């Protein structure tokens, strides 16, 4: 591993003077990312990302589809290894931890997968109970009460007996959220929590994220491209595109950016400096060509 990047103050962030302003009286950030580089085969997904994620706040990571937001969460949680750079979570270098230590750290992290990733052979109740059974020796009645409370919070207490296959996509996501917060972690990473939610559950989820943060002192990282919802609940926003951090700061700061790349994403313009399209030859050229060397 080429972990050679010192904790230098970042210089990479384009067009931003307010680099992740430390919120509460200069405490260490919960997550500190320096010089992160990650490639998938020949594609450079993340290219020199520097990012601080403060404690006790809601931090949003926004960016177009396919820029590596999910990848970034998997790197933070140690499921993937970067080619270069370092990630510290709560002072621990994630990619230098031994297995036991990494697992201990993960009991303090919750993650909501983009697909939900509920265990298919367990009911919703058992799914939420799973981390509690694995990591906390609780009496049966307490376990039951805890699980039902978590399910109540996401509005699925009535669905406790259903199997994951019987849930809709949005319900599965909410059940997965209940599971992610079952162990009362110090941080929760939400991968697209709002996709597939109707306006009512969306509102409930937004306020739930808020509540967890205010009451539990939890830190949240939300990955999303739902611009208005995310800006409304985030304390800090990082916009990434093309493998780099475009700008970071408070939602007001970010919305006030004049950088055309940021504006394009926030305003939803189909094409501009940030590519909506996966890298390709011009359309006309490809349509006129007799055939592609890939065979179609």
């Amino acid at each position, binding site marked *: 591993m080429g972990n050679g990047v010192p904790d230098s103050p970042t210089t990479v962030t384009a067009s931003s003077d307010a680099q992740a302003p430390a919120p509460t009286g200069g405490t260490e950030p919960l997550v500190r990312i320096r010089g992160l580089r990650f490639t998938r085969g020949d594609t450079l997904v993340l290219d020199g990302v520097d990012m601080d994620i403060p404690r006790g706040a809601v931090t949003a990571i926004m960016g177009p589809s396919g820029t590596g937001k999910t990848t970034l969460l998997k790197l933070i949680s140690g499921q993937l290894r970067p080619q270069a750079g370092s990630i510290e979570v709560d002072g621990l270098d994630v990619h230098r931890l031994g297995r036991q230590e990494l697992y201990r750290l993960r*009991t303090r992290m919750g993650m909501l997968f983009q697909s939900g990733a509920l265990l298919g052979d367990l009911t919703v109740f058992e799914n939420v109970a799973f981390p509690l059974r694995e990591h906390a020796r609780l009496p049966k009645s307490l376990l039951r009460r805890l699980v039902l409370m978590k399910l109540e919070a996401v509005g699925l207490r009535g669905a406790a007996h259903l199997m994951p296959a019987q849930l809709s996509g949005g319900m599965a996501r909410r059940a997965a959220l209940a599971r992610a917060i079952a162990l009362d972690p110090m941080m929760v990473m939400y991968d697209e929590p709002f996709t597939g939610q109707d306006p009512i559950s969306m509102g409930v989820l937004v306020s739930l994220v808020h509540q967890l943060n205010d009451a539990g002192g939890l830190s949240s990282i939300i990955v999303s491209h739902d611009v208005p919802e995310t800006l409304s609940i985030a304390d800090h926003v990082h916009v990434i595109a093309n493998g780099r951090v475009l700008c970071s700061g408070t939602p007001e700061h970010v919305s006030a950016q004049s950088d055309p790349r940021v504006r394009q994403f926030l305003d939803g313009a189909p094409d501009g400096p940030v590519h909506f399209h996966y890298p390709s030859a011009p359309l006309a050229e490809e349509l006129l060509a007799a055939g592609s060397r890939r065979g179609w």
Partner: protein
Amino acid sequence: MVIDALVRLGRSGLTALAGIGRAHVLLAGIVGGLPELLPRPRLLLAQIYNIGVLSVLIIAVSGLFVGMVLGLQGYYVLNQFGADESLGIMVAASLVRELGPVVTALLVAGRAGSALTAEIGLMKATEQLSALEMMAVDPVRRVLTPRFFGGFLAMPLLAAMFSALGVLGGWFVGVGLLGVDDGAFWSQMQAKLDFREDVINGVIKSLVFGVVVTWIALFEGYDATPTSAGVSRATTRSVVHAALAVLGLDFILTALMFGD
């Protein structure tokens, strides 16, 4: 051209070797999970049920029919030498030494091994294994270890059942239909079948096959490309590789055990 072919050969050789390496690392991880499994016998029992109990029907029926065929064929051959009271020992020895362990392993690979591969592969494709990782639960120890030992323990039991029903099938055809002497059938079997030489060796075989079949099934699932096509390919590979491994190992084990 020749160079190209050599490069391709070398590359597929390396891929295969890397796969074998990963399979051994996985096996070490699976077996390393045993201390965590022992205090939670429920997980193991569930898998013995899944792999063993749910295979009972196909094993029982196959055992019965294989035994009946052995009875028929054995009778025709032995009868020519007037040795038809040896039918009992012939049927029992073939079953206990060879057909019981081998056919059971092939059937388990088809019935339970393919299911294991598909299950693990789909868990991977739907990120359930990643979700376990994120809940600080080792998917190898939590998901694979119980399945591995479930298969390991179920296999000799299933093979024993196969052999027992096979003997009954042979008895039914030989004694019931073809008129072999009932007493001779059983007494020859009792006198000539050696416990250590025949029964223990058969059990050793089916323990080895249990390891190999479940190991291959779990590895193929765990190593599958996490897509529907990838899982389907892995399932096919699981059955084919398990069958070849069982037949090859059977030859080696037979040579070691009985070839002095």
